[in-house]
């Protein structure tokens, strides 16, 4: 789960990390108050959860009230990659001497949490990582949240050459690591971390992503979610316990298991069709799930035919069959349905469907061939 910069800034501030003074505003009056308190010049930063906002003109520096009024109005009109700017972060402009990068994430190949730091921070950090990998330093946590301070001291010296900055930097590193573990982040990043002309280090940006699997431990974080960034159908699907991603094609799919769902989409494509969605009904076999899945897929008017591909394990085929019958009763089904059921309780499922004259296919290839042909009609 992603949160906005202003929300991440609040979390960093509460953790004792040095952030730039300011606040978030959704209307001009608030922005003016914040600017008066912080002191001009201030930076107005559009709060959107997509990258490239700088290049899209979403960040503006203003020197007085008049400039702020004009810039604020312009930003509120702006759409960045299709997303409206609802909130604007107003912060004091800082005097940048040098930009650093720090980020904490999980390096899954090493089964460990890693702090990444570089004295070459800023927007080109990924380019730096490619061209000059020696400029990127990595500090592995070795499994635990308790930082080996001696090792960290040595590490900090490798990034911050100026001895007067090292103590500040070490404190920042420790606090960022602490936030990462306490909030179950998948990413906690400051880019740039700025050395100001008066020798202070401050976070000039804040980015946090959270581990969705850990949200049960953090109800306060879950409430920070901005639902504007989630497709309405995808949101609804999640409430039903379905994993759904809308795509551009014309073959709707309902599959159990993410791997099989992806393979089904791949094969639809290889056999000349285009999948309209990814949909994993998950492990349990509630007939209601099939009904809900069909409801969501049928809303997409591009869909010309629907494939149900189930390999029963935990999921029982007869439950899926019951769901299909229920959907036939309750829903207006203007497109053909192709069904392939194999595995647990397959025989019972086929009997149920045969009574309603729904044909089933024994193999995935046959079923996909059939659904692609129907969708092309």
């Amino acid at each position, binding site marked *: 789960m992603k949160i906005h910069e202003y929300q991440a800034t609040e979390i960093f501030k509460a953790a004792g990390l040095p952030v730039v003074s300011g606040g978030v505003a959704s209307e001009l009056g608030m922005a003016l108050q914040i600017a008066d308190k912080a002191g001009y010049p201030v930076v107005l930063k559009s709060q959107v959860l997509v990258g490239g906002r700088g290049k899209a003109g979403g960040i503006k520096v203003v020197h007085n009230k008049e400039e702020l009024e004009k810039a604020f109005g312009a930003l509120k009109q702006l759409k960045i990659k299709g997303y409206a700017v609802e909130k604007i972060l107003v912060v004091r402009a800082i005097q940048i001497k040098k930009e650093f990068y720090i*980020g904490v*994430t999980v390096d*899954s*190949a090493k089964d460990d949490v890693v702090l990444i730091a570089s004295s070459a921070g800023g927007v080109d950090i990924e380019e730096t990582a490619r061209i000059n990998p020696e400029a990127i330093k990595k500090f592995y946590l*070795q499994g*635990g949240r308790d930082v080996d301070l001696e090792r960290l001291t040595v590490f900090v010296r490798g990034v911050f050459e100026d001895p007067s900055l090292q103590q500040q930097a070490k404190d920042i590193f420790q606090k960022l690591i602490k936030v990462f573990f306490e909030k179950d982040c998948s990413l906690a990043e400051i880019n740039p971390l700025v050395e100001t002309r008066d020798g202070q280090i401050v976070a000039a940006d804040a980015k946090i992503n959270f*581990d969705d699997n850990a949200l049960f431990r953090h109800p306060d974080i879950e409430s920070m979610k901005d639902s504007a960034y989630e497709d309405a159908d995808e949101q609804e699907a999640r409430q039903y316990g379905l994993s759904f991603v809308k795509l551009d094609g014309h073959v709707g799919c309902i599959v159990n298991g993410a*791997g099989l769902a992806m393979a089904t989409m791949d094969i639809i*494509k290889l056999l000349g069709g285009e999948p309209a969605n990814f949909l994993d009904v998950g492990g349990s076999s509630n007939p209601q799930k099939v009904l809900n899945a069909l409801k969501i897929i049928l809303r997409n008017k591009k869909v010309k035919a629907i494939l149900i591909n189930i390999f029963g394990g935990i999921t029982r085929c007869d439950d899926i069959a019951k769901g299909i019958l229920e959907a036939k009763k309750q829903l207006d089904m203007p497109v053909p349905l192709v069904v392939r059921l194999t595995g647990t309780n397959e025989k019972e499922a086929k009997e149920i469907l045969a009574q309603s004259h729904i044909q089933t296919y024994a193999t*995935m290839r046959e079923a996909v061939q059939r659904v692609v042909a129907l969708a092309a009609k």
Partner: protein
Amino acid sequence: MPWRQNEDDHMSILLDENSRVIVQGITGRDGSFHTERMLEYGTTVVGGVTPGKGGQAVCGVPVFNTVAEAKDKAGANTAVIYVPAQFAKDAILEDIKAGIPLIICITEGLPVLDVVEVKKALKNTSLRLIGPNCPGVISPGKSKVGIMPGHIHKPGSIGVVSRSGTLTYEVVYNLTLSGMGQSTCVGLGGDPVIGTRFIDILDMFMRDDETTGIVIVGEIGGEDEQIAAEYIKKEATKPVVGFIAGRSAPAGKRMGHAGAIISSGDTTAEAKRTILTACGVTVVDFPDEIPSVLREKIK
């Protein structure tokens, strides 16, 4: 390695007739349902563990309060976990403390930092974790520990290793339909941090005398398939056929700069197919092509 079979019986890896299984979360809905399925299959389930419910019996097997007690009294050497995600870390740590050689975690939805902590606890031990978020392990005809449908499997000499659940069933089903039985099928789990990876299992299959061919089933994301490809290029003594899911998946969402910095390569399905092919694996387009290609390569 205690989980490997005796010298005179090399028909499988990880599990065999001597596997004595305890079920953590046996009194729960999934735990009791799958205990029954495992018993039906012939798995030696020697007990269950649910704190506070010791002394009861579920599906005819005794329930213990702790893993240590189950190990002492019932001689368990394999644990399978069905407890809810928020308790799964403690369940695995309890197995590690009790010294259970093989731990199979079916539970999905574990926080990644919980798994990192578990991996740290596993370091410098000879214990092995499979999963989390996996279908389990089966050595057909001998022992099934997990949630896979037993009847689609058939004893034989093909080793299957996969990151997926139902897609593995699809692959196994095709093998069985064409008369190719399996030595062992291992579901590694779909999470970013997992107990056991492709290379660990590939290595066991290469050393297992009765495994004559191997199927590797991967998917988009991560770099385990690339690492496996390098291993196969250097160490493979047996033919390997591969399938990679997710060629049609839309490009993944970015994970800040840090994700791009630590991932050294391309994690798309096409990139994985290319490197596996370059390292000697025959990568097929359809799961139903696996048996014939494998048969040709084993010849």
